[in-house]
């Protein structure tokens, strides 16, 4: 069984999802608990894979016994396994939160479909991270996207329906662009496998310069649309803001991230750092990234709806991820990979805590959340810790990744990106800290009651995620070590 470990993180969640879909619909609570169990098994599988890759090096798995170029390869290397564990861990946290028998903003029938769609998402995101074949990546992206449109629309509210349709239209444009880009890569290099296409790309780019440039541009547009990079972000505030809490946590925490990871994998495996440096991609990506960071932060400033504010903040932080990739130095690239991990933890914690806070307050209006820290101290404290992590206060994981990105910018002698990181962090502080201060220090209508906190199943993921924030801030080497290695393999020339 150990030899088949690379394919199991994709097969197990999909099989579990359809098995749960077959079960009867009456006992939704049991269904949710079983789903949390399946997510736990997935985390075990991914940890085992991480151990194997750590001991034996990258594992390549040829599905169906056919090796490339006839078959599809699945490759578990350092970057893939770290991201796999991230996906599995955050999904487990969200599923445990969803298994809580308390109040949810989803009806019971919708919760049944949420559980199935979330497990499908888990399997397809794992497939995206592991895949080594371009078309397999496209198919996994489509499964992820359709499941993502689904988990927005199961909340039966007009805003959620409109947001899901908008997400679908823009996401489908991105999918069409990605499909055309894959077709162009296949037409120019003759291979769909990323390693083989990468070997051919230098001659192909010399022979068909416009076609390969068009393919790169379409990859940027397609992945950028799905990752919420400015100027392709317009679906994100509506979709993440109007979805249910658990849906938003999965979307903001994981779905946009794996699309960014997909872009980095494609750009650096098929084109390679040397070829990319000769295209205008780094400059264009830097402009988009800085625009995301600054404008995303500025747009979040004026928001009164807590979840919309968190969604705009996601737009801003995806800017950090792409900035590190655009800069191209090892430190910056490792910083952006680390920021993918950090922001997933932070945003999941924020959305889950926000769900508990808004359920208690009965509204999403930030002004009505004053004084809620008295009634729900643990939740508000976790929200505060995660907010500090978003700002980048030393001691939290956000600080480490932003530090590395800025360090990478200064390595190359470019002050503007480092300055943008600083200004964007200040902007984050401007709109996050007042919420935390309001929650604890302002007077409000909330009393300190013994049963005021949410149930254990809902509270535990929030507190554990906040604890991970601090843990990764004080001991960053735990993940940074592997991500620096991964960055060095992807950027050999630097």
């Amino acid at each position: 069984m150990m030899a088949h470990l690379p394919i199991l993180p994709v097969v197990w969640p999909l099989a579990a999802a359809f098995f749960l879909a077959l079960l009867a619909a009456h006992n939704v609570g049991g269904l949710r608990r079983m789903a949390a169990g399946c997510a736990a098994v997935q985390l075990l599988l991914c940890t085992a894979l991480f151990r194997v890759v750590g001991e034996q090096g990258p594992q390549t798995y040829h599905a169906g016994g056919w090796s490339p170029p006839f078959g599809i390869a699945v490759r578990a290397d350092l970057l893939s396994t770290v991201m796999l564990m991230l996906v599995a861990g955050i999904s487990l946290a969200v599923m445990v939160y969803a298994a809580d028998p308390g109040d949810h903003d989803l009806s019971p029938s919708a919760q049944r479909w949420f559980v199935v769609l979330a497990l499908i998402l888990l399997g397809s995101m794992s497939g995206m991270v592991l895949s080594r074949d371009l078309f397999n990546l496209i198919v996994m992206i489509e499964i992820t996207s359709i499941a993502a449109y689904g988990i927005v629309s199961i909340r039966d509210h007009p805003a959620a329906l409109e947001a899901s349709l908008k997400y679908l239209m823009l996401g489908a444009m991105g999918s069409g662009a990605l499909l055309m880009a894959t077709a162009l890569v296949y037409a120019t290099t003759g291979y769909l496998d990323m390693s083989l296409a990468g070997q051919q790309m230098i001659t192909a780019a010399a022979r068909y310069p416009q076609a390969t440039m068009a393919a790169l541009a379409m990859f940027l547009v397609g992945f950028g649309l799905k990752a919420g990079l400015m100027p392709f972000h317009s679906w994100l505030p509506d979709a993440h803001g109007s979805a249910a809490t658990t849906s938003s946590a999965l979307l903001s925490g994981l779905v946009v991230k794996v699309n960014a990871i997909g872009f980095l994998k494609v750009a650096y495996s098929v084109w390679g750092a040397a070829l990319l440096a000769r295209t205008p991609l780094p400059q264009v990506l830097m402009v988009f990234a800085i625009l995301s960071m600054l404008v995303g932060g500025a747009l979040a400033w004026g928001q009164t709806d807590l979840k919309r504010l968190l969604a705009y903040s996601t737009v801003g932080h995806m800017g950090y991820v792409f900035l590190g990739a655009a800069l191209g130095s090892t430190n910056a690239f490792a910083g952006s990979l680390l920021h993918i991990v950090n922001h997933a933890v932070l945003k999941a914690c924020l959305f889950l805590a926000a769900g508990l806070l808004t359920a208690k307050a009965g509204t999403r209006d930030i002004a009505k959340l004053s004084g809620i820290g008295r009634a729900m101290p643990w939740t508000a404290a976790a929200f505060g810790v995660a907010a500090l992590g978003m700002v980048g206060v030393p001691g939290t994981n956000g600080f480490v990744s932003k530090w590395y990105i800025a360090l990478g910018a200064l390595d190359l002698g470019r002050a503007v990106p480092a300055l943008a990181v600083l200004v964007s962090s200040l902007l984050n502080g401007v709109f996050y800290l007042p919420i935390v201060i309001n929650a604890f220090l302002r007077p409000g209508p909330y009393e300190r009651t013994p049963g005021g906190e949410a149930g254990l199943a809902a509270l535990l993921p929030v507190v554990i995620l906040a604890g991970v924030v601090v843990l990764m801030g004080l001991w960053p080497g735990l993940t940074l070590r592997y991500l620096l290695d991964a960055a060095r393999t992807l950027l050999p020339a630097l």
Partner: protein
Amino acid sequence: MNDLILNVVARNLIPFIIVYGAYVTTNGHLSPGGGFAGGTIIAAALILAVLTWGLENTGLCDREEMLCGAEAASLLGYAGVGAVALFVGRPYLSNLSAGVPGGTPGALLSAGLIWVLGGIIGIKVAATLTGVYNRLSEAEDESPDPHAQGHGGGRNHGDGHGDSLDG
């Protein structure tokens, strides 16, 4: 509907369409066709039945859970067929290299597991397309409600299990 020509033609054609769909499904490894095309043809036959006699008379309206179950079961079957190769020690979804008898090229029972997977996909596609058509045609009977608010307005008899699961 009470139209005589439609009744007679549909009643006589639907079995042939289903048989043709099954033929296309099972011949996926020999000629153009396979699970997707065959499943679509079978779904066309079922949709013709729904169009001719209405959803209530076809006996498919109380079988929504069955269609949904057919979809999920076929996908589980697909995953299971792929897992058969794991027991022999070959990678997932291996075919001839896992020792599945290959047969002579050109015969019906050849190329290992491809026709099994094709059949499973045919059932899945037929169930999905019929289910989607049923959901969409149920919605026509509802009048648009521009002032609907909250959870109550969007619920109707078909909404019992949320949005349709496809893709």
